[in-house]
């Protein structure tokens, strides 16, 4: 399919049909009024050709809907500048060699899940030998010396460790995002890094299933890695970014 990037619209079964599936619950009693309200709601979102595929009684005056509609809304994708961590993909062996040649020492990485967040699996899958989806973790590289501090680490503890091991890179993980707790915690860390005069010397990277590179940049981080990240992405980014940093 070749698309006109100036005019991208959802595709159901033909180009430009604008077909979208929605589901939601309305806090209104099951019945004809609920159906009509749902339809109006979809119209207000700009949908036409609205099919109420199902409407189901959830009890307690709630009604659940599955709806298909078509929209004329389209996006000009040609004007979008994507923000994503930039690196070209090299193999582990190449990276190890490169670091050996250019740094002649291991790059020191400290990882932690900060604040109240107790989820470690994501961070571990980037750091541990075993890695993720058949892609080895940073510990497997000769290029890195990894300190994995685990979960619920306070920014203060983290910074203590950074100083202790003279780290080049901080990797923080944030999985819980309810009530934007991750933003609070990430901001706290970044503020402290500046306050301690450490920010400049470090590459500071954040990851997690609902982290985007865009958000990371906004919060003053060097990169953000989201769902499905493989360790080699992170390894490549770190090495290539540090090289840039040091060559300036």
């Amino acid at each position, binding site marked *: *399919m070749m698309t006109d990037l100036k005019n991208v619209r959802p*595709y*159901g*079964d*033909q180009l430009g049909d604008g*077909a979208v*599936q929605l589901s939601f619950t309305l806090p209104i009693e099951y019945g004809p009024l609920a159906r009509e309200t749902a339809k109006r709601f979809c119209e207000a979102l700009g949908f036409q050709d609205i*099919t*109420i*595929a*199902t409407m*189901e009684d959830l009890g307690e005056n709630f009604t659940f809907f*599955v709806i*298909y509609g078509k929209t004329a809304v389209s996006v000009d994708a040609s004007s979008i500048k994507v923000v994503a961590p930039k690196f070209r993909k090299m193999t582990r062996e190449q990276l190890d060699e490169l670091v050996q040649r250019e740094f002649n020492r291991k790059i020191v990485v400290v990882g932690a899940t900060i604040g109240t967040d107790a989820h470690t699996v994501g961070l571990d899958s980037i750091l541990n030998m075993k890695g993720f989806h058949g892609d080895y973790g940073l510990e497997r590289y000769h290029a890195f010396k990894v300190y994995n501090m685990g979960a619920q680490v306070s920014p203060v503890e983290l910074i203590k460790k950074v100083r202790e091991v003279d780290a080049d890179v901080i990797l923080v993980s944030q999985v819980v995002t309810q009530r934007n707790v991750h933003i609070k915690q990430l901001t706290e860390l970044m503020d402290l890094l500046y306050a301690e005069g450490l920010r400049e010397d470090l590459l500071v990277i954040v990851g997690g299933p609902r982290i985007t590179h865009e958000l990371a940049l906004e919060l003053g981080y060097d990169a953000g890695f989201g769902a499905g990240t493989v360790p080699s992405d992170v390894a490549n980014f770190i090495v290539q970014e540090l090289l840039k940093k040091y060559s300036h």
Partner: protein
Amino acid sequence: MDRPRIRLDKKLVDYARELAKEITDQVQEMINQHSTVSVERAVLRLFGVDGVTDDQIPLVNVVVDKIKEWEMLQDGVAKPIVNAMIVLDKNVQEVAEAVVDGLDLRSLPRVSDDKLNLKMQELSRQSLEKIEKISQYRESLLKELGDPPQPYKYLIVATGNIYEDVVQARAAVKQGADIIAVIRSTAQSLLDYVPYGATTEGYGGTYATQENFRIMRQALDDMARKVGRYIRQVNYASGLCMPEIAALAALEGLDILLNDAMYGILFRDINMIRTFTDQYISRLLCAFSGITINTGEDNYLTTADAIEKAHTVTASQLINEQFAIKAGMKPRLMGLGHAFEINPDIEDGLLYEISHAMLARELFANYPIKYMPPTKFMTGNIFKGYAMETLYNLVSIMTGQSIQLLGILTEAIHTPYLHDRYLALVNANYVFNNARHLRQEIAFKENGFIEKRANQVLKEAVNLLEHTRDVGLLKAIEEGQFADISRQRNGGKGLEGVFRKSENYINPIQDELEKRLGVRR
């Protein structure tokens, strides 16, 4: 043990087959006395007549209609045409074009029967050799690329535009489809001709044309090489043009055709004699060219209750089997149909589904049987529908089905969107892989619900077959014994295209096919 077993009453199974044989023996006698316009057009197509008039009427239609008008059709279309070829020293296409341009075949002198027969045989052999090559090529491609594991994942495309169909088919293959069927435009089954060329406008489906077959075939072969597994192509030899579609499918190397001995009668109100005759010739072609047929027993359960009427599925399968045997088909080409259509609210409905699936599997142990997904009880709750498809896929892998038409979560809403098909594959890929060898690890209780139920359905099928044998299949259909639908032997569409063969009737293609398939009548 490579799948669980149930014990069927062996005597009853044999008896059921015997009944179905008797039933179809009676019908076959009638078939042998008849031919149809579509049969004759198929002969012309196989001889090499192609193209349409300026009004988009296929040449084969013009020629057959003329010959009928000249009252020469009772002898078959081959004789007058081949006679003209010899007399005028033209090839078959030139003769056909001449007829369109006004040539009256009645005006030509007759060559000797010997000369005529020789030429007819030559043309038939050439035609069948061409088909043979095509099917050998497909065999070798299948060997080269490798056959995916069963159940094959069968998906439909239905945009109406063959080029858009290709895009969707390619995507589906990438996502894991093993079989692609292009659904036909709604009205096509009642057209008494095969449309021509590449088409971009269809209604709930895309027209079956030779060119569309070719375009899709090429796309699927391309993709097959890319993904490294053989991809099967499906269309419909159903409706008023069964034999012609079978001929075109053979010429374009299709793998599977929907083809049922009774579907057209019951669900499309096509005349009985027309359908029975057409199915025979179309199956000879399938048998010869190695095309698998898929029968349409699932349709019984879209109108009738899937528990109450389970036996009609079995009875129809047995009848379809016997008709196929008569056309020289081997079990490996008989994709008899059944379906997962029980009301999901029924307690222990899954036990019934397993039982019915096991019955089909046991009765037709090495046949490539085709399993159809839930459709009637799919609702606008796409999530619940997706759960139903999960169990459907599980029953299939658990009981060892062969061809799995994947269920679509939006079945109750619209013809599949691109990602509806994707989600169908996500579901099947997950279940088939995650339960890959489940069937080797479980057994059903001896004399338990599943076994008993299967035997009960078989018994009910035998009762229906007994009655059908007693009154004759035509009468049974008139009585509405199948799908609760009654059709009259002198009613239905396409009756005018049926004729009784004269004593001098010759169909050289049919003769050659019957000879080669060893079913010479």
